[in-house]
């Protein structure tokens, strides 16, 4: 029920309320009613036909770096 998929915004429809997104090779029309300032090429989290939030690439890179850092002993790196 709470599952949601990251999808890339391909185009935003003229009235600004709907967008076409791509998940893998699949395109889908979703609602933008719950988000603000979304732009083409942003990644959004899609849940039951709605964009729930925008994903932050900067934060994602930071989290991936944390995974790699776990290989260091505490105090080594961070």
């Amino acid at each position: 029920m709470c599952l949601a998929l990251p999808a890339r915004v391909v185009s935003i429809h003229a009235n600004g309320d709907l967008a076409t997104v791509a998940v893998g090779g699949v395109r889908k029309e979703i609602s933008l009613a719950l988000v603000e300032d979304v732009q083409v090429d942003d990644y959004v989290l899609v849940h039951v036909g709605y964009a729930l939030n925008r994903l932050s690439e900067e934060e994602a890179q930071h989290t991936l770096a944390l995974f790699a850092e776990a290989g260091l002993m505490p105090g080594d790196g961070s």
Partner: protein
Amino acid sequence: LKYIEEFRARELAQTLAAAIRREADPRRHYRLMEFCGGHTHAIFRYGVQDLMPDNVQFVHGPGCPVCVLPIGRIDAAIHLAEVQGAILCSYGDMLRVPASGRRSLLKVKAAGADIRMVYSTQDALKIARANRDREVVFFAIGFETTTPPTAVAIRQAAAQGLTNFSVFCNHVLTPAAIQNILESPELRAMERVRIDGFLGPSHVSAVIGSQPYEFFAEEFQKPVVIAGFEPLDVMQSALMLIRQLNAGRHEVENEYTRVVTREGNRKAKALVAEVFELRRAFEWRGLGLVPYSALRIKQAYARFDAERRFEIPAVQASDVKGCECPAIIRGVKNPTDCKLFGTVCTPDNPMGSCMVSTEGACAAYWSYGRFRRPAGSTGMESVA
């Protein structure tokens, strides 16, 4: 960055597993409750439990909206379609969940009731616009993640002057359920289900933010780490919980920063606050009546409230005899403790909600075959 494969990488999983083995204190036992069924499934699907040392254990929580909905509410939805003659729109998750008398929405549909599976509240609105001479009811279930789309639909129906659309509201709230688990005397008494820390919800938190958990972390002195749904997110979050427990800390930390902020989604929260208000109490399967744990539609939108629009009998329905769903939802029993599990109850012929839902603990145990492990194994050897 695709935000999926990167968070499932094998090498990083091994790095994290090694870090957990190194940092988990062999003299302690770590019992970490993953609230969400989405986490339960990630743990089973990717074999995360098998990568943990024996003293780090995941306890499965009640975060499966299909599982916690009492049978009486499904009976009520069936009543709307069967007796009131409404078109009942439901998310696919609900269709096979057993109701009273071995029925389900799917069986009632086969017998002639007009039940339609929808993917989105927008589909339900479309059906209402196309069938102006019929009553169309949306069977709204789900946690805070799924509530904002229902709020949007009700506001659109109001704006478009739809007079044949209403919502049977069963939206429930996560923080109330976590508090209920922590306060449950049964759980406190049972050593087996002592909980040391929580993996916090992913997408519920995308909406409500990490702030609402600060109360529990402080009040109950339990660490909470908001965790993404991918396997590496779960492992990193477990590591963060272990570090907090080792250091004697009990804070709210956020592993899922690519989606979750402290405030959450303000626009979605404002929409929900405009359309919904708290119910004084709501019944959860497994947890009983939980105070202030669910939402109902505000007076200003009363005409879209199926519970005000229709006469719905309050049914006190009981679970199938022998079904351990209530105890499994509370985390006091495992699916394998249930006599029905894997014998009369399977995903093809489910007796209880936990076997139906793709977020249910029984479905996770069954689908990924982890229960077939021989007794006494450490979990490190491969499971054929």
